[in-house]
């Protein structure tokens, strides 16, 4: 394949800072987009949507969000589950309070509300650093889950304490509620993923991203070249929470339909998204896709192999899954802190020079 940059001259600084500097990458990007939008919606069925594609897309948004905070700005957060819960409950309150407004707007508003909450919990980050901060974000996780569990206003005083997504339509097609078609769920998530990924990419390659990375790499030096650390950190918390809130809103309304907060948004969720970011690659938007895809596929694959093929009991497979995920996390941190995205990058470097590496 003609994977080359020779002859592909950049004549402007715009062209030099584009997302895919190599022509072949650009073509492949459009091809992936075309398949995602024009092929998959017509062949998708319920199993693929619910088991793989929809959770993959939603987790990707969450992973992009956490990656901005952890991978780009260097602030580790263990509060992802709690922030997703904020998105979900904001979504629920908005859907029930303003049933006539389009849910596309609700999702964005839910993200905005989460951004505010996230920024508030990010305030201590100015004083607290490293894993002190990681532990401090657990306060957000536990407090928020408790709040949604105990304060009945958030679940509209329903007897079960659950929240249920009412049926809503976009352009006459149901996207939430029990009668939603697989492809409709898939499409709405896909639209949000696309927009979120583009926004995240734009933010991280420009001024904003440089401020975040400066804080990540050396906060003192960043301050001395003119970065206001509080502003940079809070903006990272806000932007990150915005994405996480959107993912929480979709997770509740489109994917699950009914949610009990401790179950859906417990601390395990925080770890899951963190693992996606680590395995996929810290500081890489593509890595967020890779990590989310990997950790969504892994349990499915293990179940297919372990339970369906080998006939092992499900609990053993579940335990094995923990062992494998734990081992993988350690493996990646030891061998490749930049995750799957780095493997991909190295492969591309090699390919660019192949077959004459010198």
């Amino acid at each position, binding site marked *: 394949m003609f994977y080359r940059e020779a002859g592909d001259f950049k004549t402007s600084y715009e062209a030099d800072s584009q997302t895919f500097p190599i022509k072949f990458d650009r073509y492949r990007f459009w091809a992936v987009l075309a398949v995602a939008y024009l092929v998959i919606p017509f062949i998708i069925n319920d199993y693929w949507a619910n088991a793989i594609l929809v959770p993959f897309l939603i987790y990707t948004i969450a992973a992009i969000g956490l990656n901005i905070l952890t991978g780009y700005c*260097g602030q*580790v957060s263990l509060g992802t589950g709690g922030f997703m819960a904020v998105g979900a409950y904001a979504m629920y309150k908005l859907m029930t309070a303003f049933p006539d407004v389009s849910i596309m707007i609700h999702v964005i508003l839910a993200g905005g509300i989460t951004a505010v909450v996230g920024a508030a919990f990010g*305030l*201590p980050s100015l*004083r*607290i*650093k*490293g*894993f*002190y901060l*990681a*532990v*401090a974000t*657990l*306060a957000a996780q*536990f*407090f928020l*889950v*408790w709040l949604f*569990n*105990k*304060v009945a206003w958030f679940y509209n005083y329903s007897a079960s304490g659950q929240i249920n997504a009412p049926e809503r339509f976009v352009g006459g097609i149901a996207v939430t509620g029990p009668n939603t078609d697989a492809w409709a769920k898939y499409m709405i998530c896909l639209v949000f993923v696309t927009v979120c990924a583009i926004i995240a990419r734009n933010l991280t390659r420009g001024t904003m991203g440089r401020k975040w990375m400066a804080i990540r790499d050396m906060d*003192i030096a960043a301050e*001395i070249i003119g970065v206001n650390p509080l502003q940079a950190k809070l903006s990272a918390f806000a932007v990150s929470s915005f994405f996480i809130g959107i993912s929480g809103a979709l997770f509740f309304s489109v994917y699950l339909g009914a949610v009990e907060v401790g179950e859906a948004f417990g*601390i395990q969720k925080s*770890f899951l998204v*963190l*693992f996606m970011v*680590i395995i996929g690659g810290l500081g890489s938007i593509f890595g967020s896709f890779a990590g989310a895809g990997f950790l969504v596929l892994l349990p499915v694959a293990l179940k297919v192999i372990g339970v369906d093929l*080998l*006939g*092992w*009991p499900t*609990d*053993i497979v579940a*335990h*094995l*899954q*923990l*062992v*494998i*995920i*734990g*081992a*993988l*996390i*350690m493996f990646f*941190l*030891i061998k490749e*802190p930049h995750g799957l995205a780095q493997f991909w990058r190295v492969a591309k470097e090699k390919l660019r020079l192949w077959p004459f590496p010198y």
Partner: protein
Amino acid sequence: MSADFLYGIEVILNGLMAGVLYALVALGFVLIYKASGIFNYAQGVMALFAALTLVGIMEGQVPFSHLINAVFGTEIHHFGWHVPALLAIFLTLCVMVAFAWAVQKFIFRHLVGQEPIILFMATIGLAYFLEGMGDLMWGSDIKTLKVGLPQGGSRWIEDMTSGLGGDDFYGFFIDKLDMVATVVAAILVMCLIAFAQYSKQGRAMRAVADDHQAALSVGISLNFIWVLVWSLAGLVALVAGVMWGAKSGVQFSLSLIALKALPVLMLGGFTSIPGAIVGGLIIGVGEKLFEYTIGGMIGGATENWFAYVLALIFLVFRPQGLFGEKIIERV
């Protein structure tokens, strides 16, 4: 004295004893952190694993029996013997030392010099690994741990103190197990401090904690010290696992005590043994009192987050914790 006031005191007493157990887990964190800069999230799972192993050995369970049965279609579960408690505790300790060695050899030796946050995330991975491993080895059903510790409320204290209040006060209810745990924890802490202060290995340990390079240059084996420290943390985990396991059964929720220990550490400072103890007591008493006084009004179950929010607010004003070393930034 009014009954309300006396019940308040009972809450404080129980809080203190819960605090001792928090402190015990927190101590495991401090040990590893001081010597290697690793913030070991897996400490709680280590306690669970130790307790599971102890029960497994005592009952004569075959390790990995479920997996073996699933793969080979066999039906083995038990060796058919019972191991006395003391021997089983010793064997478990051996397992924990082997675990310490493996952790050092396969994981953290390759991560020397990495940023603390990377090490922290690695221990989260370790926690997952160990949790799955424990379940694979010994099964995930809830087990009871019988090592001969006393159970239930102490009648003696109840009778002694019932005269203090009016008719609606029945004396302090204090769990015997909590008292035993308090005593054991106190002894353990004293032994550890004595070990760190007076033994040759303890001095080497403190040297490593202070400066890796310098310790290496005077001929201390870092590897040995780190295995030693992880083993000690394993010992602390075993004790904590036995206490909590005897109290509420050996099950997954036991690993969550690590989550309780984290705010204790934030409060007390990650590098301070007295900090871990005082922090544990403050959190233990604080969360029980808060639940007793305010918790009821706002829906209860505030223990889940109170410790964290307290620690968070505290840290904003004093980022190094109560007893931690002052953080000085340099250019």
